[in-house]
């Protein structure tokens, strides 16, 4: 085949070559000879010119400048800026993308996923998985080793994230953002009604959003946050009446008994908890104050309970342990924030933690909108932080430290709080990126503080863990310059030698 083809092509080529000819005519040859003479003349002229170093560069720039009508300083500046820009572009850190598979693939167009007919899964390269329930739509904004951002436009998203400490996972739903700290959780966002729900099955997430009372809410295992566009509330899931739970049937099935146990009200008069704000008191055998029906009535204009007296909670007692939470404490119109009323809360909170009754402690902190934290003094807050950290309640510890920073911003403890938060994120929540940010905050605020050495070492470790080798080496160099015989000298040298 090859031979016959080759022969055919050879014959064909020869015939075509004969037909085409060689293009040589006497007129052409004469014309080219003249042209060659002109080239020879040019060569002779060039030969006569003195040889100057960098002549080609000068002639090139001169030609450009002449054409553009540009002064030489502008040209030089533009050249320098261009060079610096190119160098910056080359040196800019690049992060590898995490591959994302959409299953079934027909439901995805580019980065957008619409679960029109059935559930759609987003399978990430590291084993993490986001399941988008039927009727939902989402967009993968970015998926790199540094951060994975998924925008839930509408519907329910179930997430199973395998965190590695370097990638920051987040789900944006309307005005809210759920930052994942290695976990399994579900997010629901109803765009029309403006209702946002998060339910954490395992691990911890941080919920941020403009409509939340605080800057961020840390949710741990078993907790469920529901935010309405009109009202703001944290709800313990009630299988009987919470319609949202239909969104997370498998979570509810697993969690129901545990939740009931976890949020069971304190028993006996010795465990009485006094709630801040309205000074609601819960006594032996009672349920949480303020069941949903009472709260509704109160919204309609019902008289508020008298401070110091227990709120009627018969309905809650009938329905059992799981019940809605009380309203956030409202500010006194006269402006008298009840520091005196809130003061007894904190020792009780500390005592609850010391007794190992963490769920109740958490309830006290979260469900009454930080009132015990907001209305306590610095010493008490610092004690609460210590106790919470010792007990492993990192969410409460972080919240307390943030309160300290917010309320006592100019104190030494407020600056130290930044370091403590960084340490929590590094050691307990396994989130190097956030830890680095907090360590950097501490170093900015107290460059020669007591914990500056530790903060710098922590920052260096975090950078190293994130794979930001160049920055880690820089940090190690700075550390060795400042602390020649420091505690983390070997660690810094190891980073430098990598």
């Amino acid at each position: 085949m090859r031979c016959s083809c080759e022969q055919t092509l050879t014959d064909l080529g020869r015939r075509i070559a004969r037909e085409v000819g060689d293009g040589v005519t006497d007129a052409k040859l004469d014309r080219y000879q003249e042209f060659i003479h002109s080239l020879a003349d040019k060569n002779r002229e060039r030969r006569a010119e003195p040889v100057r170093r960098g002549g080609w560069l000068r002639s090139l720039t001169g030609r450009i400048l002449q054409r553009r009508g540009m002064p030489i300083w502008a040209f030089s500046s533009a050249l320098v800026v261009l060079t610096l820009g190119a160098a910056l572009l080359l040196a800019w850190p690049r992060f590898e993308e995490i591959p994302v598979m959409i299953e079934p693939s027909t439901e995805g167009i580019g980065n957008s996923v619409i679960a029109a007919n059935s559930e759609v899964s987003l399978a990430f390269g590291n084993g993490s998985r986001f399941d988008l329930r039927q009727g939902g739509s989402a967009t993968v904004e970015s998926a790199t080793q540094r951060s994975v951002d998924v925008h839930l436009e509408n519907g329910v998203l179930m997430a199973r994230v395998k965190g590695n400490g370097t990638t920051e996972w987040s789900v944006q739903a309307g005005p809210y953002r759920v930052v994942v700290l290695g976990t399994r959780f579900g997010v629901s966002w109803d765009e029309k009604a403006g209702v946002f729900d998060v339910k954490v099955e395992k691990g911890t997430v941080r919920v941020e959003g403009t409509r939340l009372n605080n800057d961020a809410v840390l949710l741990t295992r078993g907790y469920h946050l529901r935010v309405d566009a009109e009202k703001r509330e944290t709800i313990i899931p009630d299988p009987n009446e919470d319609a949202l739970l239909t969104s997370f049937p498998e979570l509810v099935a697993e969690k129901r008994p545990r939740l009931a146990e976890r949020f069971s009200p304190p028993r006996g008069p010795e465990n009485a908890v006094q709630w801040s704000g309205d000074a609601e008191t819960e006594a032996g055998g009672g349920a949480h104050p303020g069941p949903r029906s009472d709260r509704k009535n109160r919204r309609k204009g019902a008289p508020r309970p008298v401070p110091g007296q227990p709120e009627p909670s018969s309905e809650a007692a009938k329905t059992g342990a799981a019940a809605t939470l009380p309203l956030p404490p409202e500010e006194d119109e006269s402006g008298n924030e009840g520091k005196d009323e809130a003061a007894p809360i904190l020792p009780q909170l500390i005592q609850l933690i010391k007794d190992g009754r963490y769920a109740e402690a958490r309830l006290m902190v979260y469900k009454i909108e930080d009132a015990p934290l907001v209305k306590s003094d610095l010493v008490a807050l610092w004690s609460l932080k210590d106790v919470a950290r010792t007990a492993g309640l990192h969410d409460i510890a972080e919240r307390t430290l943030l309160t300290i920073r917010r309320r006592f911003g100019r104190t030494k403890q407020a600056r130290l709080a930044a370091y403590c938060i960084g340490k929590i994120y590094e050691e307990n929540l396994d989130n190097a990126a956030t830890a680095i940010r907090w360590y950097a905050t501490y170093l900015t605020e107290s460059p020669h503080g007591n914990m500056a050495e530790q903060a710098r070492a922590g920052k260096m470790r975090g950078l190293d863990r994130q794979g930001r080798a160049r920055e880690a080496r820089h940090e190690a160099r700075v550390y060795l310059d400042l602390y020649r015989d420091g505690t983390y000298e070997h660690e810094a040298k190891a980073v430098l030698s990598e």
Partner: protein
Amino acid sequence: MRKFSNRELIHGIVNGNIAASNAFHDKYSRRIIRWVWRLLGSDREHDDVVQQVYTSIFRSIRNIRQPESLDGWVNRVTIMTVKYELRRRVARRARIFYRDSRDLDEFRERRSPFKERHIKIFYSILDNMPADDRIVFVLRYMEGYKIDEIATIMACSPSTVKRRLARSELLFTKMASSDFRLVSLVEEYHAV
């Protein structure tokens, strides 16, 4: 006319010697014109390309370190210039108002319409080939060079030439078999 060695030729051209330039013209011009003509397909821009070849040669001939390699160097400059021209054409063809100038062939009047059609078809197939493949194809089948010679001209290995040749042959036969005009063309020459 005086006969110049390669060294004298180079030295003369660098110094703008007219006699040396004429000797160069006599020695290489026909080959350069023929190659450009056959590779590009005889069109209006042939003159420009040939002049470009001369300009490149006269400007950089001073860089030749071994005078004995002058022949190969001239061949390579010619091939490279044609290659760049072919690539430029591919880019130009993408423009909306590009018009192929092959119709303005000055030799057209001498040919019969039948042969003219064959030439057009042949070069329309070549236009679909990558520049390197096209050059190898023309040098092999129109110029009749051997694989090793083509490898020397193209400054690549014989196996690369074989690979390019196989690719261009495949494309040529494929396109020829998909068009009845081309089928008849190939069959006709095959019969001959």
